[in-house]
């Protein structure tokens, strides 16, 4: 009897142990090279869906070419289908563990300093030191965007961009507005929107990105485009403090309020608050002549190219790209924000050497230029202009010219926190739930609370 019980209890104990070990072992089986002796390099970036330009770029023979030259390396592409906001948290969670960390990751330059400070990214100083292209061929001021707080390089800039006003020339002509559109101040933008509203019912006059589900786009394409055209900025480089309350901020929120609530010349909230608001504007509303203006990035026009998601014939005759004016036309007359994506190597990557090899290949003159041409972006390499087809692209000359008046986002790992606050306040103001003055007050209160009194100032 005794032995019998012992047997039963032993079996129970064994069974429970077995259960535990199987429960714990699931994660490890994924890694391991595809073929013997091959190193596997996984590259992760944000995909915007089945028509994603970057995915197409990788699949267009680029990987085959690299694998042929380097038979010991296998490249896997692992696009993440997510909104910009979700993409950031998804890759951070992936980079925390060596089991899930990709070997190369696309980092938005707005988050790269945060991720570097968190220790998720590998410093690339030794690698770039041995790479002659880095010294001579990369645009110098873009390197600041990939440098961490500690002064180390955490990524290779892959794209650059500017922002401005996309507009439909045909609708402008129909409404009797001048083409090309060259607003001298904010009022002229508002006035054009009001004219469209009066003359062309059924057409949405102006699309601004205001839905917080659009993430960083809200801060950069909307609030900062306005704010940096006033006499204020978001961050004081001298005192190293965030300017959380200023006349410029109030005016910027007022502009948003004017468009959506006073003039009602903005997109319907149903569209504006959708995470895909940008795609809806450029893939549906613009081509269908239902939208007259949109403040967005220089890349957005590539949607209408032959290989884009919503091709338009003779796009240059139908669409235009105008510089965004400063508030009262003060110098330099127009402004733009510039950002872009970089390629980084996660600290937890298992194949850093092979990853760097691929990164160098990816960022050589030919391939780096091919990407920005496909995406409608500006190149971080100064020799891209020598590649046939770079500068004669539609809209690129206009966008490139704006780099002269470009502002860059505050280079600080607290940026993500401040930006998140701005996103939610812009949405509240646009949807009429919050008055502009209250929005500024809340920005001051919330940022002060998150970062502390010593990190903020009021102008």
């Amino acid at each position, binding site marked *: 009897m005794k032995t019998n019980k012992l047997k039963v209890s032993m079996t129970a104990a064994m069974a429970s142990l077995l259960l*535990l070990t199987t429960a714990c072992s699931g994660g490890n089986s994924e890694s391991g090279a595809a073929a013997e002796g091959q190193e596997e390099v996984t590259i992760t970036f944000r995909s915007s869906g089945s028509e994603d330009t970057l995915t197409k770029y990788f699949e267009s023979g680029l990987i085959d070419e690299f694998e042929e030259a380097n038979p010991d390396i296998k490249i896997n592409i692992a696009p993440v289908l997510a909104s910009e906001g979700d993409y*950031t948290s998804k890759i*951070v969670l992936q980079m925390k563990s060596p089991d899930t960390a990709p070997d190369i990751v696309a980092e938005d330059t707005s988050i790269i300093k*945060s991720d570097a400070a968190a*220790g998720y990214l590998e410093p690339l100083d030794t690698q770039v030191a041995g790479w002659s292209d880095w010294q001579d061929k990369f645009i110098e001021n873009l390197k600041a965007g990939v440098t961490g707080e500690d002064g180390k390089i955490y990524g290779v800039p892959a794209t650059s961009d500017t922002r401005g006003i996309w507009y439909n020339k045909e609708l402008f002509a129909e409404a009797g507005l001048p083409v090309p559109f060259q607003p001298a101040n904010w009022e002229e933008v508002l006035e054009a929107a009001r004219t469209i509203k009066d003359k062309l019912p059924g057409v949405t006059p102006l699309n601004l990105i205001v*839905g917080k589900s659009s993430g960083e786009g809200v801060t950069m394409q909307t609030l900062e485009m306005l704010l940096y055209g006033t006499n204020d900025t978001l961050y004081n480089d001298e005192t190293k403090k965030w300017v959380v309350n200023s006349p410029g901020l109030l005016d910027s929120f007022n502009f948003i309020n004017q468009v959506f609530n006073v003039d009602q010349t903005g997109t319907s909230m149903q569209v504006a608050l959708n995470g895909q608001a940008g795609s809806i504007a450029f893939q549906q509303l613009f081509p269908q002549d239902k939208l007259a203006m949109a403040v967005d990035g220089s890349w957005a026009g590539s949607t209408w190219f032959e290989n884009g998601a919503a091709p338009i014939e003779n796009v240059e005759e139908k669409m235009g790209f105008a510089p965004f004016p400063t508030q009262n036309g003060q110098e330099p007359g127009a402004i733009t924000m510039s950002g872009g994506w970089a390629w980084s190597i996660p600290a937890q990557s298992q194949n850093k050497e092979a990853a760097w090899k691929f990164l160098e290949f990816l960022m050589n003159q030919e391939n780096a230029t091919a990407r920005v041409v496909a995406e409608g972006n500006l190149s971080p390499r100064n020799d891209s202009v020598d590649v046939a087809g770079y500068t004669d692209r539609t809209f690129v000359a206009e966008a490139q010219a704006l780099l002269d008046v470009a502002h860059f986002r505050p280079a600080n790992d607290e940026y993500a*926190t401040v930006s998140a606050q701005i996103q939610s306040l812009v949405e*509240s103001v646009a949807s009429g739930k919050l008055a502009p003055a209250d929005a500024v007050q*809340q920005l001051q209160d919330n940022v002060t609370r998150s970062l502390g009194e010593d990190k903020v100032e009021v102008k």
Partner: protein
Amino acid sequence: MKRTSRSAFLFLTPSVLLLLIFFIVPIILTVYFAFTNMALTGSAAQNLEFVGFRNFTNMFQDPDFRISVWRTLVFLIFSAVIGQVVLGFILALLMKEKNITFRRIIGIIVIAGWVTPEIVVAFCMVAFFSDNGTLNQIIGWFGISPISWLFSFPMVSVIIANIWHGTAFSMMVYQSALDEIPKDIEEAATIDGAGSFKILSYITIPMVKGSIVTNMMLVTLQTLGVFTLIYTMTGGGPGTATQTLPVFMYNQAFVNYQFGYGTAISLVLLLIGIVASLFYMKSMKVKV
């Protein structure tokens, strides 16, 4: 005796171990993280620091938090207590002792909302409430111009969605409870001259009191945790119009990357659940 208890312990080991690893330890960790500056990215992600009650003092000063608590209560009371619990009870009462075909047809219609996965419910409801959606088509027949429901009445929209999704559960709980009331008690009451309202309030409800409390608790706890439905339909917006505590917690943890703060919010959510459950049990004088 001794031997039995020893082998009992042995048999308990697996479940105790599992509970410990997957339940107790995470809870203790959660409580600990709520008192740290844990963040998803930035320098705080690398240097976890104990910050005392800072997350909690921040929370109570945060107007967004107060708004979220309020929104959570509104969502809870209207979609769970009034919507699901009361509506479920009425449905069960109306279906009582009706013909079987009628019960089946109505039952299937109501339960359809419940068996549908939450994310699918959310998409159906977006389609129903959207600018060109079913609801606007229907009111269009009466000459009413379309309304942006999800923008103009966001809270009402998510409440209706949650009621549609959850009522079947309450209905089924009450159905089985009502079926167990012996017929002769109600018959006796009728003979004594009690009207149907008196029967309901003095006989039916007291007899299913236990089910009511259990159901209230389950529905409340389930509703407190509703995230998918709200996040998919409105993303917590417009502005903060439908930002209940789970959505607020998600935004703090995954949009603002403040994990420590998010965890602190989850503790408060847990506390609200406990208080609500205790309140139900006390007010109905039921021991569970």
